[in-house]
C-alpha cells in the first residue's frame, strides 16, 4: 500500500520532462585522411549516445569519409580517440546511415525536415514526433556563419535556423540540443529563432577550435579538444545520472580547450539546471514495476496546470504528423481530368462535320440514319 501511495504521489515525475523518445543526428562533414579527427569526434559521441541507451534505429549517423577502412590507416577497422590506441570508437556494431558522398547539405536538410523520397529506408529517416528530444551533433571545418560539407559545399547558419523552424512547425521535436565542434562554431547558433533549442559550440566567432593530440603511430590528430573533453565527461555519465546541463556547459574551459566554448539557452523553455544530460544523450525510460493499478485522473488535471504556469508559449495539441506517408504510397489515386472542352465548341465542331458529310454524300442518306 505504501508503495502504491509512493507511486501515485510521484507519478507526476513520469511526465515532467515532456519527451517520450530520443533521437540523435550525428554528422561528420569532412573527407580526407587528415580529417580523421572529425570522424573520431562523431564516432565517440555515437558511442556515448548508444551506450546511454539510444538504439541504432533512433540514431542517424552521417560520416563523410571512411577512416576505418582507409588505405592509410595502419590499423584497419579501427578509429581511435585516445593516443596509444587506448579506445577504439569504431567497434563491431557501428551502423553508418549516410556514408561517403551521401553526406550532402541537401540530404542533411532532408533528414531534418523529413522531406525524403518515399523509397528512403527507415534507417535513413528521422522519424521524430512532437515528443522527441533530438541531439544534433555537427563537426567538421567551419567559418563565420557556415559549415563546410565534403570540401565542396556549405550550409549557412540561416539555412540551419530555417530548418529547425520547419521542424518546429511540423512538430518534429519536443526539445533539441545542438552541439557543434568547428572553428567559429558559435556563429552557427546565432540565428536560431525557434523555441526549445539549446546550443553548444566549441569556439566563439573569431576563434579556431583546435585538435587534441596526434598519434605518431597513426600519423594524424585523433580528436578535437572540445569533443575529447566532452567524451571524458560523458564517460562518467550512466543512465541513472542526475547530471544537468549546467555541468555540460562547463566542459572544456579555456585552459584546456584554448578556445572559449559557448552555449545558448535563451530559446529553451525549461531552466537548464533542471535539464538532465540523459534527456538528450540517453534514452532513459522511467520504469517502475508495480502490481497495483493507479488512478491517473488527478495527474491529468495536474498536468493541465503546468502549461498555464509556464506562460510564454501555449503549445496547442497537434495530431501526430505523418512522417512516413504509407497510405499515399499504397493507394495511388488515378489522375483526375479537370479540363473539359467548352460545350459550344463541341456543338460547333460536330455541326460542321455533319454539314460537310451531308454536303458530300447528299441528303438521301438521312433516311438511312433516322
Amino acid at each position, binding site marked *: 500500500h505504501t508503495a502504491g501511495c509512493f507511486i501515485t504521489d510521484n507519478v507526476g515525475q513520469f511526465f515532467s520532462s515532456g519527451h517520450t523518445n530520443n533521437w540523435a543526428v550525428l554528422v561528420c562533414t569532412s573527407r580526407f585522411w587528415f580529417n580523421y579527427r572529425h570522424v573520431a569526434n562523431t564516432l565517440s559521441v555515437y558511442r556515448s549516445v548508444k551506450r546511454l541507451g539510444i538504439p541504432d534505429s533512433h540514431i542517424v549517423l552521417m560520416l563523410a569519409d571512411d577512416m576505418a577502412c582507409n588505405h592509410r590507416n595502419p590499423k584497419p577497422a579501427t578509429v581511435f580517440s585516445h593516443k596509444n590506441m587506448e579506445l577504439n570508437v569504431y567497434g563491431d556494431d557501428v551502423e553508418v546511415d549516410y556514408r561517403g558522398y551521401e553526406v550532402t547539405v541537401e540530404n542533411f536538410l532532408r533528414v531534418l525536415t523529413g522531406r525524403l523520397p518515399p523509397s528512403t529506408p527507415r534507417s535513413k529517416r528521422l522519424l521524430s514526433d512532437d515528443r522527441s528530444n533530438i541531439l544534433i551533433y555537427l563537426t567538421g571545418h567551419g567559418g563565420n556563419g557556415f559549415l563546410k560539407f565534403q570540401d565542396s559545399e556549405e550550409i549557412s547558419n540561416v539555412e540551419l535556423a530555417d530548418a529547425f523552424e520547419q521542424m518546429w512547425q511540423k512538430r518534429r521535436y519536443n526539445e533539441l540540443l545542438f552541439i557543434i565542434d568547428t572553428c567559429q562554431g558559435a556563429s552557427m547558433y546565432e540565428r536560431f529563432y525557434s523555441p526549445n533549442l539549446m546550443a553548444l559550440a566549441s569556439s566563439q566567432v573569431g576563434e579556431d577550435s583546435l585538435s587534441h593530440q596526434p598519434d605518431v603511430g597513426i600519423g594524424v590528430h585523433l580528436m578535437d579538444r572540445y569533443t575529447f573533453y566532452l567524451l571524458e565527461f560523458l564517460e562518467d555519465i550512466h543512465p541513472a545520472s542526475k547530471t544537468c546541463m549546467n555541468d555540460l556547459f562547463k566542459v572544456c574551459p579555456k585552459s584546456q580547450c584554448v578556445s572559449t566554448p559557448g552555449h545558448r539557452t535563451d530559446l529553451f523553455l525549461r531552466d537548464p539546471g533542471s535539464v538532465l544530460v540523459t534527456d538528450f544523450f540517453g534514452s532513459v525510460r522511467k520504469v517502475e514495476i508495480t502490481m497495483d493499478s493507479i488512478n491517473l485522473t488527478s495527474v491529468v488535471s495536474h498536468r493541465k496546470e503546468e502549461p498555464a504556469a509556464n506562460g510564454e508559449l501555449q503549445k496547442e495539441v497537434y495530431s501526430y504528423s505523418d512522417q512516413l506517408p504509407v497510405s499515399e504510397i499504397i493507394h495511388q489515386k488515378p489522375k483526375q481530368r479537370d*479540363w*473539359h*472542352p*467548352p460545350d459550344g465548341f463541341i456543338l*460547333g*465542331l460536330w455541326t460542321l462535320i455533319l454539314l*460537310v458529310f451531308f454536303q*458530300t454524300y447528299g441528303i438521301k442518306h438521312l433516311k438511312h440514319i433516322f
Partner: protein
Amino acid sequence: MQPHTVKHGQFCSLKVHFVVYKQLNFPTPLSRDGRRAAAPLSKMAAPLTLLFLLAVTVRAALFNSSLKELISDRVEVVSPLTAWKRVIEGLALLDLGVSPYSGDVFHETPLVIYLFHFVVDYAEVTFMLADLITAGCLYMAVKDYNKQVFRKQKFALEADRYPLDCLELIRSPKEMHYIPLKVAMFYLLNPFTILSCVARSTCCLNNAVIALFILSTIKGNLLLSAVFLSLATYQCLYPLVLVAPALLYLLQHQYIPVNFRRPNFWWLVAQYLFMFGGSLLVVVCLSFFLLGSWDFLSSVYGFILSVPDLTPNIGLFWYFFAEMFEHFRLFFLCVFQINVFFYTIPLSLKLKDHPVFLIFMQLSIISIFKSYPTVGDSALYLSFLPVWTHLHRFLRNIFLVSCLLLASSLLFPVLWHLWIYAGSANSNFYYAITLVFNVAQILLVSDYFYAFLRREHHLTYGLYLKRKDGSEAAMVLK
C-alpha cells in the same frame, strides 16, 4: 522517206493495234464514255486484310515491348512539334488550369488537344487506326489513279498518239493490278512508319489527313478535298503547297483546260480557294473557341516559321541556325522557308498535265525541306514509289540512293550515341549523316522526276531516235 518504210510502218500499226488490244484486255466491260464504276474492293480484300493484320500485329508487339520508351525519345522519329511527351505535358498543364501554350512545351494545334482529351488512354489504338486509315486511303486513291492512267492511255492509243517503237513503255492492267496493295504495304511495313507509330508521334495524324486529302482529290470531290487540305495546312502549314496540284487535278478531272482567259477556269479556282480559305478560317476560329485565346497562333505557326528550337533532327535547319550570327538570322530564315514554297511554281508549270506526280514531288519537297522533319514525313512519299515502278528502266541512281539511305538510316543512332553519350564525336558527325540522308532523298526525287519526264518524252518522240536517214541517233543533254 522511202516508200518501203512507210508501208511497213502502216502494216506495223495495224498489227500493233491488234496485239495491244489483245494484251490490254481489261476484265470489266467498258461503258459508253469510258468511265468505270468503282470496282469493289472484294478482289483485293483478303490480301489487304492480311496486310492490315500484319501491320497491327507488328505495332502491337512493339507497343508492348520495352522499346516503346526508347523510340519515343529518338530525335529522328519525333520533333518538338510532334512528340508525344509534349502532348501529355500540354494536357497535364491544361488540367492544372494553365494554358498549354505557356512556355515552350506544346506546339501542336488545339484540335489535337480536343482529340486526345478523350482518347489519351487509348492512344496506341488511335495511332494504329491513323496508320490504317492512311494506308486504306492511299490504296483506294492509287487504285482510282491507275484506272484513270489506263483510260487515258487507251484514248491515246486509239488516237494513235504514241510512236510505234515505244510500245514497251505502255502499261498493262496486269502489271498495275498489285500496285495499290504494294503502296499500302510500302506505307504500313516501312520501318520509318512503324517507328513513328510506336513513338506515338502526331506525324501519323498528319499523314492520315494528307492521305484523306489525296483520296478526296483523286475522287474529284471539291469540298472534301478543300476541307482536308485546310486541316492539313492548319496542322502543319507546309501542305499549303499542295493547293496547286489539287487545283490542276480537279481542273483536269472536270475537263477544264488551264487557260487564263476562260471563265470556267477562274470559277473552279475561285470555288476551291473559297472553300479552302473558308474551312481554314472556320477551323482556326474553332480552335480559338476551344481554349479561349489566340496563343496557339504564335506557338504553332510562329514556332514552325521562326524555328527557335535547334534540337538536332534529320533536317537541315538546326546546324545552320546554331552557328549563324544573329543579324543574319531573319534573312536566312526567309531563304530557307521560301525554299520550301518556291518549287511549286516551276514544278507546276512543268507537270501541269501530271498532277498526281506533282503531288508526289511536293510531298517529298515538304518532307526534305520543312523546318522539323521526321522519318514519318519521308515515309509518306516513299510509299508512293510503287506507283512509278514503270519508270524503273530510266532511273539512274538506284544503287547509290538505296545505299545512301540505308547507310544513313543505320548510322543516325550510332553517331548520335557517339556524340551525346560517348563524347568522342561532335555535332559535325551527326550533321554529316543528316546531309547524306537529305542528299539521298533529293537524289531519289530528282531521279524519279528525270525518269518521268524522260518517259513522257519518249512517248511523244519515240524510244529510239532516228535521224532523217533512218540511222540511229542519240540525244545529248547539254
